[in-house]
């Protein structure tokens, strides 16, 4: 294949990072067809092969024997490159390969099964109700991300991990401060240390006195190789990192998106639509931003491009999910449609908490739109602070108001 030297691709040397604001960088349209595996530089200072098409994305993510997860999935965006190749922290299964990964994954899979997650529904409904009641008491405008998006998923995780009731407010504050971009870096780092310390004490407490929760079951249940305290702490931090800000951003960004698409928002009150609609939002918004990183452990060819052993690959989910070869009219939001999207990733590392995320969204979004009559964003569109510079795409602060709160 010869490539036109005047191709717009010639100017693409760096990983595209800016969305606009619901769609991925428009250059992905050209990149997907003309250079589906393209070498680009990254914010972390090393080059990656950027994989942007749907089928290629699935091929790479499914082949975990060739494409290792040992380097953190966002190292190309933040990590300093000297950390590449470092051994994965204990318990942080997204960075383990092969048996080391599946041993952890299969011990946890049952905790996040559809039927297990369904038992959390009454608790999630209660949280959603209480937090909407809380908005009503405070009166608008309020920041939806901080006052609703962040606390609901944090409290769901605290329930799963068995955080004692009296410590949940403290837990919620520390976890929210970690990702609240209105705070300084120092304040966020201090909050991250606080959360880590919290989990050290929580694991210790569960080892001394197990309860009916995920950590206690991992401690008490007979197994060939019990998890030690360090693994449990790593795992608890991972579950928080994976399940908290992701869901918070989905709640916030989906609300803004649906307010911009009122004909779609009108469908939210139909349970049948929610069966497909929540996944359609996950596909359309693809909040895992700028690709997930893998490392080739041997030479391999993807879409005609040779990738050498040791090279890094970034699979750009927001582009794959808009690939017209996978889905007609992929740039359109249509809550009635169904697709095999890769918003939760693909392959053995596909999101473990996906059923929980779906359940939280399918409870939270319709309730926000049903109860907050006249729901609206008060910030002008051009001043909405989108998270182009973050690992998870979303909105840093979304000031909303409403006319009336109904029961």
């Amino acid at each position, binding site marked *: 294949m010869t490539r036109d030297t005047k191709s717009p691709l010639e100017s693409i040397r760096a990983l595209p990072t800016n969305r606009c604001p619901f769609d991925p960088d428009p250059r992905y349209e050209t990149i997907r067809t003309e250079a589906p595996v393209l070498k680009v530089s990254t914010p972390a200072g090393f080059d990656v092969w950027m994989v942007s098409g749907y089928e290629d994305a699935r091929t790479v*993510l*499914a082949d975990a024997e060739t494409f290792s997860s040992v380097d953190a999935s966002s190292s190309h965006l933040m990590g300093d490159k000297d950390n590449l190749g470092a051994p994965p922290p204990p318990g942080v299964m997204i960075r383990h390969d092969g048996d080391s990964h*599946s041993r952890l*994954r*299969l*011990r946890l*899979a*049952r905790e*996040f*099964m*559809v*039927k297990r997650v369904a038992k959390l529904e009454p608790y999630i409904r209660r949280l959603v109700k209480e937090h909407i009641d809380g908005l009503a008491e405070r009166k608008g405008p309020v920041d939806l991300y901080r006052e609703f998006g962040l606390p609901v998923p944090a409290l769901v995780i605290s329930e799963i991990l068995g955080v004692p009731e009296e410590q949940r407010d403290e837990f919620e504050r520390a976890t929210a401060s970690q990702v609240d971009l209105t705070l300084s870096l120092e304040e966020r780092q201090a909050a991250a240390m606080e959360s880590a310390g919290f989990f050290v004490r929580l694991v210790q407490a569960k080892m001394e006195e197990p309860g009916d929760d995920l950590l206690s079951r991992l401690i008490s249940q007979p197994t060939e190789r019990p998890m030690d305290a360090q693994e449990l702490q790593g795992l608890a931090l991972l579950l928080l990192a994976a399940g908290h800000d992701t869901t918070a951003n989905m709640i916030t960004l989906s609300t803004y998106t649906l307010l911009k698409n009122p004909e779609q928002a009108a469908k939210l009150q139909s349970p049948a639509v929610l069966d497909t609609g929540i996944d359609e939002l996950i596909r359309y918004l693809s909040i895992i931003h700028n690709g997930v990183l893998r490392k080739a452990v041997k030479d391999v060819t993807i879409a005609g491009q040779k990738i050498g052993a040791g090279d890094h690959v970034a699979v750009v989910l927001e582009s794959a999910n808009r690939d017209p070869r996978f889905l007609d009219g992929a740039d359109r939001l249509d809550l009635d449609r*169904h697709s*095999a999207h890769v918003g939760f*990733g*693909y*392959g*053995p590392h*596909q*999101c*473990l908490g*996906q*059923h929980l995320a779906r359940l939280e969204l399918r409870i939270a979004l319709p309730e926000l739109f049903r109860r907050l009559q006249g729901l609206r964003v008060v910030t002008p569109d051009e001043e909405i602070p989108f998270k182009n510079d973050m690992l998870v795409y979303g909105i840093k602060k979304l000031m909303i108001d409403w006319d009336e709160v109904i029961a």
Partner: protein
Amino acid sequence: MKFDINVDKCVGAGVCAIAAPEVFDQNDDDGIIVVLDPNPPLEQAQLVHDAATRCPAAVITNVQL
């Protein structure tokens, strides 16, 4: 209709259990695929095909009418 499964590849994501809940479930012990109906009626074909397409570990293969 028929299909094959490769249990060893299953990672317990549970996508099959939401795609075709009358045909697939998850084992209570480890979340791994459980086949509820190895010869489902034809009206399940689309759902089984969907489960096969969406399964992140390609556990379900040879979906045949």
